[in-house]
């Protein structure tokens, strides 16, 4: 009997709590929408890229008698071959560079850089370097974690955005536009300044 009497009261209380929870979740979702619409928890600081110069076969340093069979190529062909080295050779034989930056994440969830693109290079890959017993080992990575409420530093001798087959000279002072794709935050535009380390 007592139980029956209490029951509606309890039900009502549960309903009330549910309503509060629902309102809370709705509020949270709205707040999340708000931040996602205007800004992202990801910020990029001090992006920079290494200078790169395309091979110029007319360069003085190329005029020596190297291993190349110069006799079989006239100068015009040499120049064409040189321009081709801008990136068409593939398998790492083009001109390569790297971009570095600090990526910070103000969200309470970790995020991951999963890819990057740029107009100045044929391919962009994510790499890291590990030193084991004094041996530098560079490896491609699938993603770079940006820890929750933390940051990751892409720097020489560590994580870097590798630019393979660079298509144009990257001179100090130039800007390289990169698009980083993060698993949660989506695409982030980065303007990296070309400079010496």
């Amino acid at each position, binding site marked *: 009997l007592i139980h029956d009497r209490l029951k509606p009261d309890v039900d009502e209380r549960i309903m009330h709590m549910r309503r509060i929870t629902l309102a809370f979740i709705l509020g949270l979702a709205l707040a999340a929408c708000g931040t996602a619409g205007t800004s992202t928890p990801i910020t990029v600081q001090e992006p920079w890229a*290494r*200078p*790169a*110069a395309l*091979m*110029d*076969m007319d*360069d003085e*340093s*190329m*005029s*020596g*008698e*190297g*291993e*190349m069979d110069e006799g079989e190529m006239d100068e015009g062909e040499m120049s064409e071959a040189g321009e081709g*080295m801008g990136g068409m050779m*593939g*398998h*790492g*034989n083009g001109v*390569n*560079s*790297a971009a570095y930056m600090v990526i910070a994440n103000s969200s309470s969830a970790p995020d991951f850089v999963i890819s990057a693109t740029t107009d100045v290079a*044929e*391919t962009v*890959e994510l*790499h890291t*370097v590990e*030193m084991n017993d*004094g*041996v*530098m*080992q*560079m*490896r*491609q990575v699938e993603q770079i974690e940006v820890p929750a409420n933390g940051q990751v530093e892409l720097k*020489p*001798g560590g994580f*870097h955005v*590798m*630019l*393979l*087959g660079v298509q144009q000279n990257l001179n100090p002072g130039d800007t390289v536009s990169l698009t980083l794709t993060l698993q949660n935050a989506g695409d982030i535009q980065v303007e990296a300044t070309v400079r*010496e*380390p």
Partner: protein
Amino acid sequence: MLILRLLRSFRLYALLFIVLLSGCGGSHEFTATVLEPPNTAPDFSLVNQHGETFQLSEQQGSVVLLFFGFTSCPDICPGELAQLAAVRRELGSDAEQVQVAFVTLDPERDTPERLGWYVGNFDPTFYGLYGSPEELEPVLQDYGVTSIKRELEGSQLGYTIDHSAFLYAIDKAGNWRLLFPYGSNIDDIVADVRYLTRENVQ
């Protein structure tokens, strides 16, 4: 007033520092690992980007800085070469007695021309040295260089070269004197190399 006092004490310290330095005379505390007793650097003969023979034993009178790497390398090798270019700038006129030589670990992809282009981006005086795998093998052994070709599946790079990244300093008498670990401070390298350039060679 405080600033003046600080300045005065700074001047005193600076003076003290100079006195102490001059007291040191010829001795120099190397930051790099010192090879003792210094032995004649193992000789080798490779070709530079101009197609000329580079014989190490013929470089006496210059301090030779050797670094081993590969030109497809976008991180460690350009970092080291940029640092060596900065070292030469810092050395000023002492740099005239310093020869930097970058030895390829990737004879498959590198050519003397490509090496010349690569090192020339950092300093026109740098040599890029090339040799066939057979010619390079004893050099790597003599200098304790680790170099392992590693396929990178899925990477456009195709393969990378895992390699040790020491900087070797050979003095004007042709002795292998110093070994700098990767990431050494530029000022430390400058101080050590400057000392070697100013040594009197009998």
